[in-house]
């Protein structure tokens, strides 16, 4: 089986790798490149634990052949922030109690980022809609949505729409 040479930008770094035709992006990331932050929950696109950003959009890395990311830009949770410099979403997830078991967290963070990148001030409904492909069994989603909303608000220096909602 001929290997395929691909080049793509992973977390801001250009990478060249050889992949088998049937290698999935999730396995390339986890097993070859050691980026285990991206999780396998169902393997069939039904849970979103494997979510990464492909050219800025949230996608299921368990459903993508690695060969397809040739020429693309991929961001995983490892590219979002680090111990020293957390992404605002990561800070908010910690502060708001959006993390319980943490298995859905990396995918959830990336779905949130892909939303905020195109819609800096989403409503709670829009947030819920955008993370609907990321299953969480622990939190009931409330604190996850709170965390995303908090970042959206901070970004715009606006009065938090949640507070406004609670005041109704």
């Amino acid at each position, binding site marked *: 089986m001929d290997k395929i040479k691909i080049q793509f930008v992973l977390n801001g770094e250009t990478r060249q790798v050889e992949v088998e035709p049937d290698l999935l992006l999730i396995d390339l990331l986890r097993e070859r490149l050691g980026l285990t932050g991206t999780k396998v*929950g*169902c393997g*069939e696109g*039904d*849970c979103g634990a494997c979510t990464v950003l492909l050219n800025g959009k949230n996608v299921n890395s368990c459903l993508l052949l690695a060969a397809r990311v040739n020429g693309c830009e991929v961001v995983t949770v490892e590219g979002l922030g680090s111990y020293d410099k957390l992404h605002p979403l990561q800070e908010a997830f910690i502060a*708001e*109690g959006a*993390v*319980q*078991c*943490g*298995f859905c967290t990396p995918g959830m963070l990336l779905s949130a980022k892909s939303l905020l990148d195109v819609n800096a001030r989403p409503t709670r409904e829009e*947030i*819920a*809609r955008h*993370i*609907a*492909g*990321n*299953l*969480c*069994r*622990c*939190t*009931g*989603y*409330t*604190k*996850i*949505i709170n965390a995303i909303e908090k970042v959206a608000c901070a970004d715009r220096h606006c009065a938090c729409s949640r507070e406004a909602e609670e005041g109704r």
Partner: protein
Amino acid sequence: MKKRGVGMGCMWYGVGNTGLPNPAGAHVDILDDGTVLVLTGCADIGQGSDTALAQIAAEEIGVRYEDVRVVSADTGVTPDAGATSASRQTYISGNAVRSAARAAKQLILETAAEMLGVSQEEIIAGDRLLKVRAASGKSQAFTDCQSECRVGLGLDSGSDTREVSIAEVIAKCRMKGKLTLGHGWYNPDTTGLDAETGQGRPYATYAFATQVAEVEVDEDTGEVTVLRVVAAHDVGRAINPRNVEGQIEGGCAIGMGYALMEEIKLQEGNVLNCNFATYLLPTSLDVPEIYPLIVEDPEKTGPFGAKGVGEPALIPTAAAIANAVYDAVGVRITDLPITPDKILAKLKEKQNKGA
């Protein structure tokens, strides 16, 4: 036509195994710099026991939360704490950790009492300091007197004799060759149940809850939307209120799935819906708005009054939703899950009877 309804569900839940011993152990080591290591067999599966146990140890010893590190669930180094089940870890491992922390702290108190020239009972710990109780009687006067003497002798007032840092006490302990280790364990006060009558004391304490659900039922399709859930939980004492809320919110979501959509379908013992495309969990668009309410009726045997909340969070949800559906459209579904087809069939039945 869409109709709204409101229903209530209550529950109680015995914390710990039923009528069986279920002890937990813990080790606490107060280290040279005054930071603390807690060893516990308690498995944190995301519910936050590492955090709650760190808070309990910090409170008991008198250090800050960030001074405590919990090493958990490694049979090579941690004592058995039993299962993370039965909503038991905050109560049982919490008590074990508190007891271990108290044992380690006792060693510090002995030395601190000498350093401060007071009896141990007069010392309170907090924020990395050991202080002489402000309103303490005789010894207070003694130390006040001592201070006055010091001032009289041209020395400073000697506030160092009124409080001393835990790190300083530890240094003193080490100079004396004393390690500050404690261990503890806890087993709740229960009895077995009589085989014929079931009489006995199965649990040392119970958690309680009331949930109220608001639903909207589409009479044409039988579809149920859960709009809001009010969830009031007596947890004894919330060690970490935000994490308690997280347990309640997550529990309501699982309870909602149980009420309306989740069901393993079997054929000859084989699971037919064995993936997430066919076994459906609630998504972010399915869950209601949840109003968690923490009620604190402290349990005197609990660590700082705490009981448990993990399981109680989901127990009354399906019951409340079922009662809300009845309130909305006047039909009672007695077999879970309450699926649209069951509601529609009952509504038709009711209509036919009426006609």
